[in-house]
């Protein structure tokens, strides 16, 4: 069965400059594809192409396996787009929902039913007759959600829908969205700059940097095994250091980095020059001098604390152990260990946690690690 939407050899230009190039990308039926990348990477451009709002300078867009050229309008009427700004019209909330339905030829009675149902679903039914520019930001976003879902589209496209909201509202709405997506099983493409959202909602993640798709894979795979340095920093692997692969055997590779030899899981096709990528969540800190607990953590290093940053739920500790290493620990542990800048500390991590990336120009020659495995 063909993918719901496919891009083949797509090139997008703005004022004669190439801003997006996608040799191949598939959005599968029923999946949630999260698209992340830095600002200006081309995420929105990609979404516009998928939404058939932007005709690419080169390449083809396929919907249900067939070319869309010439029938963009009819296919657009089978999709729904939610943007960062709800952009509601100067009329009542109900009328706003009705506009899209009317444009798609939905009958009057059906319109009324859908408006009621979806306004109710997102908890804003009581605002139906209120004029849309007299409601709060959060309420407007709910209306925007209702508007999109009421269209009962085959594909839902979202462009950083909650970016403009405060944290608690954002999280609430994200929950609601996740719930609605789960119920409807809609094919969804979700652009965000917040990797936790991608983690939360995405079945697969596509990472875009500088107009190229660097990696598309199941969420876990992208986060655990970023394809290159840019992807690594995007997915939050904070320790990225250059190293040299010195030996390999029994599925383990030894890598010399910052004066240490650390063990990593060996992978085929890795050159000598590598980047060592390590997620802070995978690094455990303990008091130096303590014997490492008997575990499969083959890597045990000593170092000095260079920085401590308090975050929402954890503390981020930067350690210099010959190379910069970042670890997350709970605030409780921070207190218990009495960590302070300049103090001595020991860091432990499994070989499995160490991800090696070939060092060299990232994203060269169409290397997108498109894994064809089902999500």
């Amino acid at each position: 069965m063909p993918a719901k939407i496919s891009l083949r050899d797509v090139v997008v230009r703005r004022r004669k400059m190439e801003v997006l190039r996608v040799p191949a990308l598939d959005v599968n039926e029923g999946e949630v594809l999260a698209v992340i990348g830095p600002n200006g990477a081309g995420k929105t451009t990609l979404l516009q192409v998928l939404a058939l709002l932007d005709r690419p300078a080169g390449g083809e867009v396929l919907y249900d396996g067939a070319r869309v050229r010439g029938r963009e309008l009819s296919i657009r009427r089978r999709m729904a787009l939610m943007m960062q700004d709800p952009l509601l019209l100067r009329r009542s909330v109900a009328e706003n929902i009705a506009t899209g339905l009317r444009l798609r030829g939905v009958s009057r009675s059906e319109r009324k039913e859908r408006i009621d149902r979806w306004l109710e679903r997102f908890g804003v039914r009581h605002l139906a007759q209120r004029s849309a520019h007299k409601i709060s930001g959060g309420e407007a976003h709910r209306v925007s959600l209702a508007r999109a879902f009421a269209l009962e589209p085959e594909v839902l496209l979202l462009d950083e829908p909650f970016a403009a909201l405060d944290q608690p509202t954002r999280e609430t709405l994200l929950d609601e969205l996740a719930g609605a997506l789960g119920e409807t099983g809609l094919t969804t493409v979700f652009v965000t700059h917040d990797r936790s959202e991608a983690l939360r909602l995405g079945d697969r993640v596509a990472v875009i940097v500088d107009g190229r798709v660097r990696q598309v894979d199941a969420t876990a795979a992208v986060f655990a095994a970023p394809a290159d340095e840019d992807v690594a920093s995007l997915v939050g692997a904070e320790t990225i250091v250059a190293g040299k692969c010195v030996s390999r055997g029994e599925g383990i590779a030894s890598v010399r980095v910052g004066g240490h030899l650390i063990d990593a899981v060996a992978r085929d096709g890795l050159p000598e020059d590598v980047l060592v990528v390590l997620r802070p969540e995978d690094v455990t800190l303990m008091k130096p001098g303590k014997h490492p607990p008997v575990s499969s953590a083959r890597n045990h290093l000593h170092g000095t604390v260079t920085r401590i940053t308090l975050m929402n739920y954890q503390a981020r500790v930067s350690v210099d152990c010959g190379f910069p290493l970042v670890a997350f620990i709970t605030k409780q542990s921070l207190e218990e260990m009495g960590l302070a800048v300049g103090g001595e500390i020991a860091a432990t991590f499994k070989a499995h946690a160490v991800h090696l990336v070939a060092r060299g120009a990232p994203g060269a020659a169409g290397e997108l690690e498109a894994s064809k495995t089902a999500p």
Partner: protein
Amino acid sequence: MDLIWDGLREAIHIIRTGDYSVWSITLRSLLVSGSAVLISLVLGVLAGAVLAFKDFRGRGILLSLVNTGMGLPPVAVGLLVAILLWRSGPLGHLRLIYTPTAMVAAQTIIATPIVTGFTAAALRHLDPRLRTQLYALGASRPQMLWVVLWEAKLPLLAAVMAGFGGAISEVGASMMVGGNLAGETRVLTTSVILEVSRGEFAPAIALSIILLVLIFIVNAILTTVQQQERM
């Protein structure tokens, strides 16, 4: 001062007795300027939409021209149209000179840049992403335009008021292309000129007052509609 009081008394007298000729002149003013405004509305809104939304080379120059056109001297327009419509002119065979149609044409030329300028400004004011959202909702281009114009209807109503004011108040062009013919092309403004040249100040003031009241009533109606839409 007496002159103004006389004029006021005359005006009330005219309104109360319903003097036929004045009412037909007023009606003609309304019809001629009203038609001109409606035509310029259609032309101006379309032109304004193109200027606001389509990116093309020379758009800046065109916008400057439109803004210049908003301040176009009506008498210059009148002269141009007259020269075209005179029998000796290129369009003489249309036999339109000294007819209300010619006046509508001249007033349309005067009002259209006003409506175009206001429309372009109003539409450029809207969020450009709104159009994207509307396309995404499934609008075709004409449907998108319709919704967007409805969104901008407040400034568009202002455009209509400005256009109507310009058309019904102007006298130079109406005089030249209309000829101020009794029963055919005489309107409020040209009547005022005529009465003044005859030294009949009281009727002139009466006509001026009626003209002012007319403009006020039309604007009041439009303003009410505009304010109502504010919801």
